[in-house]
């Protein structure tokens, strides 16, 4: 029977330096390689899909913009080809869950599985030390999910570029503002920041709930609630909105509210409705073009009769400041959540 080569222990042990941080790299890789390979497979698959569809989209866009003269049947055809492409990707809904999937399936099980299977009793009694173990894992994996997400968002930026290019109004598009809810957080650093936040929410939920499946479910619920609240209530307040009386705002503006005034007072909505209804019959010309014409006529009539239309909006040029503001506070939130998780690991409650 083999025996231990060195007799147990020496008094000098007490002064030993801690196990170096870099030793955690091998531990993390061995334990999480399946999840990390899964992450790369998911993003890789989506990359191939977006690349193939994206090339066609960019090709159609180039054909439509290069077409002369603009009104000719051939050019209308090219416009329609572009506008009719990739209906399943254009609103971004399919890609919206990507950050939370990454966060929930990598973040939530990280500590929940240790607690559920009892392996924390092994991990936290090794020489590395429990809080250093937790910090090393959380920070490394946070970077390991955020970096690919950031790369992926570069691809998404490229993919969606035609929708936001200047001069695309001509192409009969719906006039996407860069703040369009489904696409805003797919382009730019916000995508990576949301992925990081989902991971951090998952890690904390896993440590608190200590059950893998429940932690994943709770992570998805919290993320969905947070994303909805930010998109609906918070984002428009990042910078004070602009107010204008101009009637032709560019399509890139994010319109937050519109109201009328006459002689310094704000007429009630009911009153405005009455004025409009009494002056105009329903549009004579059927179809969207007819409605648009009628709407323009109403605006002109009201302007001539001393009404002023006010519009509160965020200009499209604020896309990047808004991206950095959102990424910044999400990063701060993630750091706080990860710190809280490490603190929970350190506080010994077993």
């Amino acid at each position: 029977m083999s025996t231990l080569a060195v007799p147990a222990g020496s008094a000098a042990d007490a002064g030993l330096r801690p196990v170096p941080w870099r030793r955690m790299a091998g531990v993390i890789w061995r334990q999480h390689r399946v999840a990390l390979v899964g992450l790369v497979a998911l993003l890789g698959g989506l990359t191939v899909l977006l690349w193939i569809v994206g090339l066609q989209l960019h090709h159609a866009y180039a054909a439509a913009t290069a077409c002369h003269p603009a009104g000719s049947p051939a050019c209308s055809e090219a416009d329609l080809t572009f506008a009719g492409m990739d209906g399943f990707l254009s609103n971004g809904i399919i890609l919206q869950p990507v950050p939370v999937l990454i966060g929930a399936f990598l973040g939530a099980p990280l500590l929940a599985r240790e607690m559920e299977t009892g392996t924390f009793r092994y991990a936290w009694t090794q020489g590395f030390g429990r809080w250093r173990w937790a910090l090393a894992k959380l920070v490394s994996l946070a970077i390991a999910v955020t970096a690919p997400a950031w790369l992926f968002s570069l691809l998404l930026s490229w993919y969606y570029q035609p929708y936001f290019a200047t001069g695309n109004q001509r192409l009969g598009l719906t006039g996407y503002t860069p703040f369009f809810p489904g696409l805003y957080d797919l382009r730019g650093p916000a995508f990576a920041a949301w992925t990081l936040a989902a991971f951090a929410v998952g890690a904390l939920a896993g440590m608190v709930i200590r059950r893998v499946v429940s932690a994943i479910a709770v992570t998805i619920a919290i993320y969905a609630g947070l994303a909805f609240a930010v998109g609906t209530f918070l984002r428009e307040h990042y910078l004070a909105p602009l107010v204008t009386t101009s009637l032709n705002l560019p399509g890139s503006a994010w319109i937050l509210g519109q109201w009328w005034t006459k002689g310094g007072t704000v007429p009630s909505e009911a009153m405005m409705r009455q004025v409009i209804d009494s002056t105009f019959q329903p549009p004579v010309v059927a179809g969207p073009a007819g409605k648009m014409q009628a709407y323009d006529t109403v605006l002109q009539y009201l302007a001539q009769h001393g009404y002023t239309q006010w519009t509160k909006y965020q200009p499209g040029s604020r896309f990047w400041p808004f991206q950095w503001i959102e990424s910044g506070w999400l990063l701060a939130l993630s750091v706080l959540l990860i710190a809280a998780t490490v603190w929970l690991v350190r506080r010994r409650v077993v």
Partner: protein
Amino acid sequence: MTEHVKVLEASGLGKRYGSRWALRECTLEVPAGHVTALVGPNGAGKTTLLNLAVGLASPTAGVVTVLGGRLAGSPAALNGIAFVAQDTPLYKNLSVVDMVCVTRNLNRRFDQSYAKARLAELGIPLKRKAGKLSGGQQAQVALTLALARRPQLLVLDEPVAMLDPVARHDFMDTVLTAASADGVSVLLSSHVLAELERVASYLVLLSRGQVRLAGEVKDLLAAGRVASLEELALSHLHENATEVAQ
């Protein structure tokens, strides 16, 4: 390590979960160089005491130090203690060789050649996932990883409770070899008294969260005028039950 060093010292140690004290006013000294058996009925506080000793739990009251005054759970203490928890948890989806690498990376000291040689001796395939090993093999892997850290104190929580008699015997043999040949102090909890008879030279008897009896087995047997550890433990537990009843 000499006999004078205490591998475990507790003073006024208490741990409360909610309103229930799992362990209270526990004052105890365990000298080095023994295989110490921590015995007592289920719920007596054995696991709580071990969790406090290895630093998994923190005390509600009092202090516990290990290996001659190192605060339980401190880096210095973790360097000198190896712990095998109840049901010998391993990462089920990692292979045995991965578990060896992970444990080596997580510790300052790790005797890889010992680990490899011992696993080969046990006939445990290195490439197999830990979750696919038998209960006895998993326990042996966990013990091998713990011993390869060359601890001064090996702490085992109910190590053989889930094992069949053969695996139980083999496991205890490995523990005894480490204790006798390499001078590792061992602290193990069990409610299987018969198994401890063979291995323990020091006894700590816990009941209802308090220490009832502690001392060297040979002294306790002589003082109690009983022939076996089992008899000694049972007589004390019965005495205690009678006291409580009165």
